[in-house]
C-alpha cells in the first residue's frame, strides 16, 4: 500500500511540474502584458512603463521565466503579484483561501448530505410519488439557471424578508474597529470545524470499537455533547459576535449552492442504491426478517456510498476553485473571483499561482480518492 502511495506521489509531482510549466506558458501567451494597462494612461511616459516591466521581470526571455517560476513554486515562492505589487502571490492566495474553503466546503458537505439522504429514499421508494416528486425537484434544481436563482434567493431572503445579509461576508458596522482581521477569525473557524470533524470521527470510531451496549450510548450521546461543547466554546469566546456574523453571512450562499448541488448527488445515490438493492445479500437480509430501515441504511446505503464518497472527495478537491458566479453575486471575495480578475488583468503570477494551488489540491484529492477506494472496497485492495 505504501509503495502504491509513494508511486502515485512521484507521478503527482511530475505531473504538477508539467502542469505548472504549461500553465505559465499558456497564460504568458495571452495577448499583451501588464504594461498594456499602463498604456491606457496617455500621460504616462513610456519610460515609466519600462520601469514597471523591468521591476516585474518581464524583460526576461520566456523559457528562463518559466524554469525559474517552476523551481520557485516548489520552494513556496509564487512570485509577486503584478496588480498588487509588491504583495506576494502567496499572501494574496492565503488571504482569499479561508473564505473560499469555508463557503464551498460547507456547501459541498451540506449538498452531499442532503443528496445522499434523499437519494437513499428515492431508491427505496422507487415508483412511488416520493420518487417522482424528488426527481422532478432534483432535475429542476440541477438545471436551474444559477445566476438567476442566486439573485432570486438574495432578493427573497435578503431583501424581501431581511433574514440574511445582502451578500458580503462580514458586516461593516460589526467589524469597524474589530480587534482581529476577519481572515484570522475565518482561520480559527476553519480550524475549530476541522477539530469538530476529527472529534466526531473519533467518537464514531469509539462507538464501533466498544461493546454494543456501551457503543450505542456513545453513539447516541457523544455527538450531541461534542456539538454542544463546540457551540459553547464559540458562545463563550470573545469573538462570538464576529463568528456569528460570519456564519450569518455564510448561510444564504451555502443554502443556495447546496440547493443546486445536492440534486446530482441525489441522482447518483439513487442509481448506486438501485444497483445495490439487486444484490443477493440484500435478499438474504430481507429473508432474515431484518427491519426495512436497517436493510436500507446499514446494508444497502453503506455499500451504495462508494461512488458517492469518491465523487465527494473529487468535488472537495475543486472546492478551492470556488465559483466565480457565487462569489460575484454574493459579494464573497474568494479564490474564484481572484482568478478571474488575475486573468483579465494579465496578472500572470497570481493567475498561475492560483491555478497551481488548485492543481495541487486536485492531485491530492485524486490520491485520497484512490486510497479511499482501496480502503472501502476490499476487491480493489486485493487486485
Amino acid at each position, binding site marked *: 500500500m505504501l509503495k502504491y502511495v509513494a508511486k502515485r506521489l512521484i507521478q503527482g509531482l511530475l505531473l504538477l511540474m508539467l502542469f505548472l510549466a504549461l500553465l505559465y506558458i499558456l497564460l504568458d501567451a495571452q495577448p499583451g502584458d501588464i504594461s498594456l494597462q499602463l498604456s491606457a494612461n496617455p500621460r504616462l511616459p513610456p519610460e515609466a512603463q519600462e520601469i514597471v516591466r523591468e521591476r516585474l521581470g518581464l524583460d526576461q526571455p520566456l523559457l528562463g521565466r518559466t524554469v525559474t517560476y517552476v523551481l520557485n513554486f516548489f520552494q513556496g515562492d509564487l512570485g509577486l503579484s503584478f496588480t498588487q505589487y509588491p504583495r506576494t502571490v502567496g499572501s494574496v492566495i492565503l488571504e482569499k483561501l479561508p473564505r473560499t474553503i469555508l463557503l464551498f466546503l460547507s456547501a459541498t458537505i451540506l449538498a452531499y448530505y442532503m443528496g445522499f439522504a434523499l437519494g437513499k429514499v428515492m431508491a427505496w421508494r422507487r415508483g412511488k410519488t416520493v420518487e417522482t416528486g424528488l426527481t422532478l425537484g432534483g432535475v429542476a434544481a440541477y438545471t436551474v439557471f444559477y445566476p438567476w436563482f442566486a439573485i432570486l434567493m438574495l432578493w427573497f431572503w435578503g431583501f424581501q424578508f431581511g433574514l440574511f445579509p445582502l451578500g458580503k461576508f462580514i458586516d461593516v458596522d460589526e467589524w469597524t474597529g474589530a480587534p482581529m482581521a476577519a481572515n484570522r477569525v475565518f482561520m480559527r473557524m476553519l480550524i475549530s470545524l476541522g477539530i469538530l470533524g476529527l472529534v466526531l470521527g473519533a467518537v464514531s470510531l469509539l462507538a464501533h470499537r466498544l461493546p454494543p451496549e456501551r457503543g450505542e450510548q456513545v453513539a447516541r450521546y457523544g455527538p450531541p455533547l461534542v456539538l454542544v461543547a463546540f457551540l459553547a466554546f464559540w458562545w463563550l469566546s470573545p469573538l462570538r459576535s464576529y463568528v456569528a456574523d460570519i456564519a450569518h453571512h455564510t448561510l444564504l450562499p451555502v443554502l443556495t449552492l447546496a440547493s443546486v448541488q445536492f440534486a446530482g448527488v441525489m441522482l447518483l445515490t439513487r442509481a448506486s442504491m438501485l444497483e445495490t438493492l439487486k444484490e443477493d445479500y440484500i435478499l438474504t437480509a430481507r429473508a432474515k426478517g431484518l427491519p426495512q430501515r436497517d436493510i436500507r441504511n446499514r446494508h444497502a446505503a453503506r455499500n451504495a456510498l462508494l461512488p458517492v464518497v469518491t465523487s465527494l472527495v473529487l468535488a472537495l478537491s475543486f472546492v478551492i476553485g470556488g465559483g466565480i458566479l457565487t462569489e460575484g*453575486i454574493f*459579494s464573497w471575495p474568494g479564490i474564484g473571483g481572484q482568478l478571474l480578475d488575475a486573468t483579465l488583468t494579465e496578472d500572470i503570477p497570481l493567475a498561475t499561482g492560483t491555478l497551481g494551488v488548485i492543481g495541487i489540491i486536485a492531485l491530492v484529492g485524486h490520491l485520497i480518492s484512490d486510497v479511499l477506494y482501496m480502503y472501502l472496497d476490499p476487491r480493489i485492495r486485493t487486485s
Partner: protein
Amino acid sequence: MRATQLTRWRWLAIVAVLAIVAAACQQGGGGTTAAPSDGGTATTSLSGDTGATTTAAGEEEPTTGGDLATYRMGIFSDTTTDNFWAYYDPASSVWTGYILNDTKSALYGNSYPGIELTKDLAASSEVPTGAAEGDGWAIEVAMREDAMWDDGTPVTANDVAFTFATVRDLALGGNWLSAWPLPDPENPDAIGLTDVQAVDDYTVKLVFNQQPGLVIWPHSVGTAPVMPAHTWGPVVEEAKASDDPAAALYAASGVENDVASGPMNFVEREEGAFARSEANDVYYDRGVEVESGGFNYTVGPFTDESTFSVYGGQDAAVLALKAGEVDYLLNPLGMQRGLLAQVQDDPNLTAVVNPTFGFRYLAFNMREEPMSIPAFRDALALMIDKEFMANNVLQGAAFPLYATMPEGNRKWYNAEVAESFASNYVGKTIQERLEGAVQILRDAGFTWETEPTVATDAEGNVLNAVNNGVGIAYNGQPVRPLEILAPGPGYDPLRATYSIWIETWLNQLGFEAEANPTDFNALVAAVDPQADNTAAFDMFILGWSLGNPAFPDYHHSFFHSSNDMLVNGGSNRGGYASEEFDALADAYQAAQSEEEAYDLMWQMEEVLQRDKPYILLFDTGILEFYRTESVAFPFTETLGGLQFIQGMQELVTAAK
C-alpha cells in the same frame, strides 16, 4: 433506535443553525447613519425619448441637511493598497483612488462643478509664473500657514520637497512621474523638475530645466499630491538602504505611516470587505464658502466617516441601496441601465446621469493606403450616420460626438465650433451621404467596376438601402481587404455594434471590409507596435478617458508626430503627422494663459476635423444612483458624475 438518533441529529443541526442566526441578529446591525428621514425628495427626471435620467441641478430645491454620521458607499472591487505611494504607482486603481485621493492635498486643486483651478496648500489662487534662473526656470510658491496634517503637524514646504526628492531618489514610476516630471536626458526638449527646495517653512521653490507651460505648471506639478515628511521620512530612509527601495517603500503600511491633510483620513481596511475613512477634524478648508460653476456651497466634511463596502455585482449592490445598507454606489463606469427601473420605482432613490470626460473613436493606420488617403477618411466620415446610430441602433445609450472635447467639459467646450463641425453631417439622407462620399472618392482617384447607388423601387422611388459598389480601385490598383478591430460585445456592445455598421458602410462604398470585434487585450496588443516595430492594423475602435479636465493635455499625446507609437511608444497609434498640428500642439504645451490655450486647442480641433486621424463616434453618460432619503449633495450635475470627485465625501450632508 437509529431513526431516533438521526432525528435528534437533525433537530440538533436545526437548533445550531437557529442559534447562529439568533446570535447574528443580536449584533444590532443596520446602519449607523443618523440621517433624519422625514420623507424622501426624489428628484429623478426622465427625458421621455430615451429613458435616460438627467439632472437639473440648477432647478432643484436644496436638499442638503445637517451632519451625517456615516456616509456609506458601495464599491465593486477591493482596494489594492493602503499605501499612497504604492497607489500612485504599481497599485494604481480607481477603487483605491476613491478612498485615498481625499487624504492628500496639493499646492492647487480644482473646484467642481466649474472645474476652476484654485488654491489648496498654496496661499493664493493666483499662480506664480516664476522667472529664469541660470539655465532653468524657478518658481517660488507661498504656502498657507494654517494647513495641518491630521496629527497636528503643520504642512510645510519641506513636505513638498520631500515628496519630489523621494520620487527622484527612489526612481518611482507610474503616476508619480507624470505628477512630478523629471528631465529626460535623451530629450533636452522635455520639461522636467530639476529640484524642489524649501526656501522656508512656507515657501517652496520649484526649479524646472526650462520654462514650463500651463500643462506642467500648475496643472501637473501644482496638483501633485504632497506626502508627509515627518511620518514617511524614516520609512524612505530605510527603503533607500534596501535592495529595491521602491518595493520596500510600497510594502510599508499606509495605516501605520500615513497622515492626512485632505478632508478625509483613511483609517481602516478589511481586505475583501470594506474600507473606512474618518473626517479630518483639522482640515483647513472646512467651512469655506465656494462658488463654482454657478453653485454656492460650503466645504465640509459634514460626515464623521465614510465607509466603502465591496460588492461583487451591481444587482446585489442595488438591492443594498434599496434596503438602505448604502447611500451611494461608486463605479467609474456607472451603473447598468437595466437597473434603472428598480431605482425609478423607489421614492427613496435618485438616478442621475452626467456626461463623461472621454470619447470612443475610430482610428486609422495612416501609414498605409487607403487609410492614408484623406478622401477615404472623409468619405467614411460622411457615411457614418452618428445620429442614426445613437438614437436608433444604440437606443439612446450613447450620444454622437463631433469634436474631441466633450460637451460635458463646459469650461473648454466651444459649442459654436463644435456645432459647425456637426452641421456637415447632421440631417443628411442616405442618398446625400452616399452620393457625397462617392463624389469625394471619385475626385481622389477611386474607381469602381460598379459604382454604389441608392436602391430604388420599381417606380424609381429612393429606398433606404444601397446597391453596394463593386471592384473599387485606387489609381487603377484594386484596394486590398480592410479590417476594423473593435472590443468584443462582452466588453463593450456599443463599440462592437458600431464596428459592424462601419463594415456595412465601407462595403456599401465598395470596400472589402470586415469588422472584427475581439478580446480587449488582444485588440490592444494588435494596435501596439509589433515585434518588428510596425503597425499591424488598418482601423480600430477604442476609447479614451481624457484625464485632467481643468487643463486638457491629450491633443499632444494622441496626435503629435513625436508621440508616434513607432517612434517612442507614444499614444499616437495611427502615425498621424502634420507640421501644422505639431506647431499648434507645441504652442499649446507652452501656453502661459488659459485664453491662449483655449484658442490653440480649437485651432487644433479645426485641423483634426479636416485631417480626421480619428473619426469621433460617441460617448455615453455615466449613470449613478444614490439614496435621497439619507444623503444630499450641493450639486449633482458634474462632469464624470459624483464618482469623479470620490462621491463628494467632503460635501455630502444628511438629507433634509
